[in-house]
């Protein structure tokens, strides 16, 4: 993000209502490389393509902020890789991390990885360090430390079905697993901040918290998210595009002040559930409208979305989730123009 975009984001989070509202999208490998004309695997493995594709998006849509900005990632494989998870790569598909725990009992032998040395994490850092001068030369800075959340990491290590069953059948071991994942996350975030002093925000992505009840979130989600976010940064950004009515009222207690959520809930409902304490990033249907619709569909849907929510404070228009594959430039331009027209 450039300085002006960062300052706008912080201003909205502090409660200022800007006119027009800033527009922002989470962009990463599911959309960016294919939009720029490259395969996902080339994007992951070629630093130059990574830089060029990000710069191309920034220059194509100067009125939009892209979050977290120059996101150095390897899909879902980044954090699990340090635990020894095999990363599965296809030429133009999202990579996948294979499970490493075959039973809850294997948690007893799980060790916290070292983010400085293990898995893909040094590659994440090095890619940004190699490109840092050019990123900053383009007027942008690395603003966010980024990681998958503790429950998300736990499910990649042992499987979603297995983890969500084990919180009922073997809760003590699942707490142990979440403690290891969270200790590791805290180290990983600290290491990113150490490498890039410009970081003043944390983005955690964790859809699994949306699968559990409020009681289970209080037990297995909140304490760990709270610890992961417990650091002195301005923006504490959380992404969950699963249904999250049950956990939403507790998200401010985790320290979160910026939320990207899915299309299952309205902006008004989410604002009410979070007590107006969290800036909302959302939530146009990403696939059905932003990807599959025409520019006219996007204009209509964005207008309806903005008119349906009472007041535009603590709101940054976006889609409900990350930018999905296949979104055309014309639809992004229609989105930005509509936000400008409705809120300007």
């Amino acid at each position, binding site marked *: 993000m450039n300085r002006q975009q960062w300052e706008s984001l912080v201003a909205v989070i502090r409660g200022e209502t800007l006119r027009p509202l800033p527009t922002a999208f989470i962009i990463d490998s599911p959309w960016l490389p294919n939009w720029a004309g490259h395969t996902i695997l080339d994007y992951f493995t070629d630093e130059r393509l990574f830089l060029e594709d990000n710069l191309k998006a920034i220059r194509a849509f100067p009125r939009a902020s892209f979050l977290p900005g120059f996101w150095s990632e390897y899909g879902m494989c980044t954090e699990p890789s340090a635990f020894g998870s095999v990363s599965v790569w296809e030429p133009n598909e999202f990579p996948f991390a294979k499970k490493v725990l075959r039973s809850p009992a294997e948690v007893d032998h799980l060790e916290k990885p070292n983010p400085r040395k293990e898995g893909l994490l040094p590659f994440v850092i090095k890619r940004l360090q190699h490109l840092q001068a050019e990123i900053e030369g383009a007027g942008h800075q690395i603003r966010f430390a980024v990681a998958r959340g503790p429950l998300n990491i736990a499910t990649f290590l042992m499987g*979603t079905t297995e983890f969500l069953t084990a919180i009922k059948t073997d809760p003590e071991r699942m707490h142990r697993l979440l403690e290891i994942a969270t200790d590791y996350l805290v180290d990983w975030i600290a290491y990113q901040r150490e490498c890039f002093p410009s970081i003043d925000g944390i983005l955690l992505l964790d859809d699994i918290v949306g*699968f559990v009840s409020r009681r289970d979130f209080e037990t297995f989600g909140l304490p760990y998210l709270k610890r992961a976010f417990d650091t002195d940064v301005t923006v504490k950004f959380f992404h969950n595009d699963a249904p999250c*009515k049950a956990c939403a009222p507790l998200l401010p207690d985790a320290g979160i002040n910026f939320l990207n959520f899915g299309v299952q809930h309205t902006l008004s409902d989410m604002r009410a559930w979070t007590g107006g304490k969290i800036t909302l990033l959302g939530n146009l249907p990403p696939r059905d409208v932003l990807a599959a619709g025409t520019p006219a569909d996007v204009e209509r849907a964005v207008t309806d979305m903005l008119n349906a929510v009472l007041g535009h404070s603590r709101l940054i228009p976006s889609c409900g989730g990350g930018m999905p594959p296949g979104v055309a430039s014309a639809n992004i331009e229609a989105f930005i123009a509509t936000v400008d027209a409705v809120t300007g």
Partner: protein
Amino acid sequence: MSDFRELRDAVARGDVVAAVAAARRDLEDGAPPLRIATEGISRAMTAVGRLFEEGDCYVPELLMSARATKEVFEILRPLLAQTGTKPLARVVLGTVRGDMHDIGKNLVGALLEGGGFEVIDLGVDVAPELFVAAVRERRPEILGLSALLTTTMTGMKATVEALRGAGVREEVKVMIGGAPVTQGYSQAIGADGYADNAASAVELARRLIGAERPQTAEG
């Protein structure tokens, strides 16, 4: 004669031990295995599925109910076989090629099994030719395809095309589901139906084979 309330309550709260004990008591009291399956298990899982669909039941609770159902079926299955009772239909399920996600498929499988279907789970990352082989060898009435990613949902289209290419497309109903999937995509690839959640997948399966909807635990 039991009204199966204890069994239904145990399944609904995911208490495996209590569900098995209740089923054994019902059998000792002379309840026919088919009635235990339909009036106990199926009604309980239909109710659980409805709560899940309405957001009043969460994934861990549903998984525990599914475990209870599975354990009770382990007891009932040989008894049902002795009486010549057949499941509503056979369903082959799998997550398509390139996709390792299993939670959606597992939830659908659990609710289908609880709803009286025989479920054959091919697992994750299933190639189109494996689905074709399963249709040829296991002769299911329904093939269920799951995908979580937009990058892998194209595996559904490839599977439907493989079924056509192998000449077995008309032998099986194809239903699809998963986060990126829509009704429009289902129609575009020539599937027979789409469900946007696990509970509605059971309804869809019943419609595809022309079966009637059972009563819920309350009904």
